[in-house]
């Protein structure tokens, strides 16, 4: 029995070391990319992209379900984007709150005729289309709710008329130049078919007229930990994956795609909750099979600010959904796994997500009962176990602080010393309690995937942005 517990301890430690080393490697690779981006920013000529009449137009797609608190601020921010040619298409997915009414009042919406062809499959019937009386490039499509986020997005894809489409969450705020920057890879390299932009947590930050004017760390620890998570995983993790040529996830909160390629793969999958990752995986699968030369890129600075969950209950729902979605995506694309035909996606990215993201919570959580049982049976050497845990904890903390250091050396969005201090403390707090709770939510999500629970939007309670009057 003792040797079984010892062997398991070593397995868990090895797993932690591998997991955190993976993160560290991604952060290291990302830091090179970020440094390069910073050095070259002064001659990136985003103004030329804005001035060029041949810059490809973008349809910005927003799926909105019960977003009455933030929808007007979000659409306001989108309409104020600096970009030569774009349209904003809000697909109001049968909300039960005043989402449409808020939009109607704010933008003086009137019913209009709009041809929406069926290029990608949809489920819910389109009820009506609305546009402002003025020339504002906004279209609001009302449709029946089907409980799936991918359905309104697919309606938006069908309604879109620009060669590029940008998918944005209704609770997100894009920075004014975000679209120019995230579209730049399409202009620089005709092989690019999709790009993702950075998502940061807006909680606690000062928001004026749909713009984050000052980044501030939120007050609640659960939000602070998410700021750190977003920094580590969304900014540096995805920049690292992009640099390695194996980017599998572009967040549904902010991603740009070539519309024709999205139509080729049939739009978003209507039967998964991981529709954003599934779309990117489908694009990889389709273009690899067709032997087409393509790129999926990530841009480290076009920032999309989003409101992250402010309570454990809401966060738990979100993370269960993410974990279930990941399981569904990996299952749907299992043919690519360990398959050299799919290059780095099949050989590196998918196995990584399987081993460290999907089944990670099983390994992390199984350690707790085994240590308790081992202790009760007298098989656990307490000083040794404490040392063991301290090394695992310290390495995790080092990874988080490395991410913070890269942020401070590059973008340094949080200007106050107290924000830096709060972020350091959040890195400590994250490992005590939060990490275990997070693993529990992910395990529940995995269980939902195994049971084949049906996909749904999920109820995300919003507090709205902190907009001073």
């Amino acid at each position, binding site marked *: 029995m003792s040797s079984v517990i010892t062997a398991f301890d070593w397995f868990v430690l090895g797993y932690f070391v591998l997991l955190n080393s993976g993160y560290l490697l991604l952060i290291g690779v990302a830091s090179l990319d970020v440094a390069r981006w910073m*050095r*070259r920013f*002064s*001659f*990136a*000529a985003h103004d*030329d*992209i804005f*001035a*060029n*009449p*041949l*810059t490809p137009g973008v349809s910005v797609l927003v799926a909105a379900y019960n977003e009455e608190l933030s929808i007007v601020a979000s659409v306001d921010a989108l309409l104020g984007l600096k970009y030569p040619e774009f349209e904003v298409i809000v697909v109001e997915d049968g909300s039960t709150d005043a989402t449409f009414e808020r939009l109607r009042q704010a933008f003086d919406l*009137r019913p*209009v*005729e*709009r*041809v929406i*062809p069926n290029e990608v499959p949809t489920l819910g019937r389109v009820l009506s289309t609305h546009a402002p*009386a003025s020339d504002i490039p906004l279209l609001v499509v009302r449709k029946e709710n089907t409980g799936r986020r991918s359905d309104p997005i697919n309606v938006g894809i069908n309604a879109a*008329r620009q060669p590029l489409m940008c998918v944005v969450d209704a609770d997100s705020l894009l920075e004014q130049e975000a679209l120019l920057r995230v579209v730049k890879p399409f*202009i*620089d*390299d*005709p092989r690019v078919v999709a790009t993702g932009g950075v998502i940061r947590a807006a909680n606690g930050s000062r928001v004026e007229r749909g713009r984050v004017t000052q980044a501030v760390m939120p007050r609640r620890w659960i939000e602070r930990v998410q700021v750190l998570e977003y920094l580590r995983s969304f900014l540096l993790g995805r920049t690292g994956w992009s640099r390695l040529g194996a980017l599998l996830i572009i967040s549904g909160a902010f991603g740009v795609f070539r519309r024709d390629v999205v139509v080729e793969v049939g739009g978003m999958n209507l039967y998964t909750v991981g529709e954003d990752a599934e779309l990117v995986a489908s694009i990889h699968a389709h273009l690899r099979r067709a032997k087409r030369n393509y790129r999926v890129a990530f841009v480290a600075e076009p920032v999309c600010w989003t409101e992250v969950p402010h309570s454990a209950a809401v966060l738990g729902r979100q993370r269960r959904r993410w974990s279930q979605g990941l399981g569904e995506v990996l299952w749907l694309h299992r043919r690519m796994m360990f398959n050299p035909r799919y290059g780095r996606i099949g050989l590196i990215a998918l196995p990584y997500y399987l081993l460290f993201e999907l089944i990670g919570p099983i390994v992390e959580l199984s350690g707790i009962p085994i240590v308790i049982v081992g202790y009760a049976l007298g098989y656990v050497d307490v*000083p*040794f176990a404490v*040392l*063991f845990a*301290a*090394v695992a904890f*310290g*390495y995790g*903390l*080092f990874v988080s*602080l*490395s991410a*913070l*250091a890269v942020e*401070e*050396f590059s973008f*340094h969005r949080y200007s106050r*010393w107290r924000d*830096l201090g709060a972020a*350091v403390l959040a890195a400590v707090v994250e490992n005590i309690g939060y990490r275990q709770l997070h693993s529990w939510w992910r395990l529940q999500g995995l269980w939902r995937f195994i049971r084949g629970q049906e996909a749904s939007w999920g109820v995300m309670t919003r507090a709205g942005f902190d907009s001073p009057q």
Partner: protein
Amino acid sequence: MTRVASGFVAALVAITALLVLLALATAVRKAMRESRDRRHARVEAAVRPALLSYLAEDEPDPHELDEVVQGRAAGRSLQELAAGLLTKLRGEDRRVLERLLDAQGVLDQARRRTRRPGPVGRARAADLLGAAGYEAALPELTRLLRDRDPDVRAAAARALGKLAVPSAVPALLGSLDARRAVPAGVVTMAILHIGPEAAAPLADGLSLDHSGTARAISAELLGRLGGFQAAGRLIEALGSDPEERVRAAAARALGRIGVPRSVPPLEAALMQDASASVKQAAAWALGELGGTRGFAGLTAALRSPDHALARRAADALVSCGPLGVALLQRTAATDEPGSPEARETLGRLEPAAA
């Protein structure tokens, strides 16, 4: 203590040391950056008024700033401010700034920096030479179009555009097909910067000696720059170019240029071309040209199962005047193909009429 436990202790000590070092490095970096920003703001606050009053003078002497701007930091700040203002100013103020940078040796230095080993230095040099409109740097910038770094090539192309020299157009078009190519978006903007004088060399770009990318861009830009003289070659490209993107670009260009003799070839493209994108471009172009001469083709296109084509045909029919609007109204009242597109177009007309 066992060897394993000793190993753990050593690992813990090493991690703790790294954590402390990382925290210290982050804090020091933040403190240094804040201090540098404050110093920079202080220097700039002193230099900016001197530069602005210099610009306001009738006959400024570049050397009079030497008395005000003393020290390396102030000199660098002056050059940064002047270079930054270059892109914002026009006319005499801009020429004064160019003379100032020239007198300070900044532009000659930038020419030399186009040979620096680091790509960032080369790109910044190209950027400055372009912003200053420094024509003497044409050979350096043309050379940088073949640089090994893509960002340097793009910076050189943009700079060539800002020099506004039509003789740079063949090199810019050539850079599209080079082994180390310049992105099409960068080249188009550079040629647009050059302006209508670029039309003549662009017309040569329609020749089949060039790649499809170069021909498509030449056609597109001829439309944007009003290349009336190239209308014949655009009509020829619309009818016979082997690549659909070139034919589509030629159709759009003819629509923009607005030469009446392009209506029959556009209508022929609308009716007979095999490519959906060419048909759509031809429908749009006929709408831009107006009149009723393309009416028959547009009427057929309105009933196309291709929604994008039907929509463009519906929009174009409005420019056919009462005849086109009456057709849209008749179609809108039915369930025939083209009726949703007709209703959408008429719906847009109503608020405008009101």
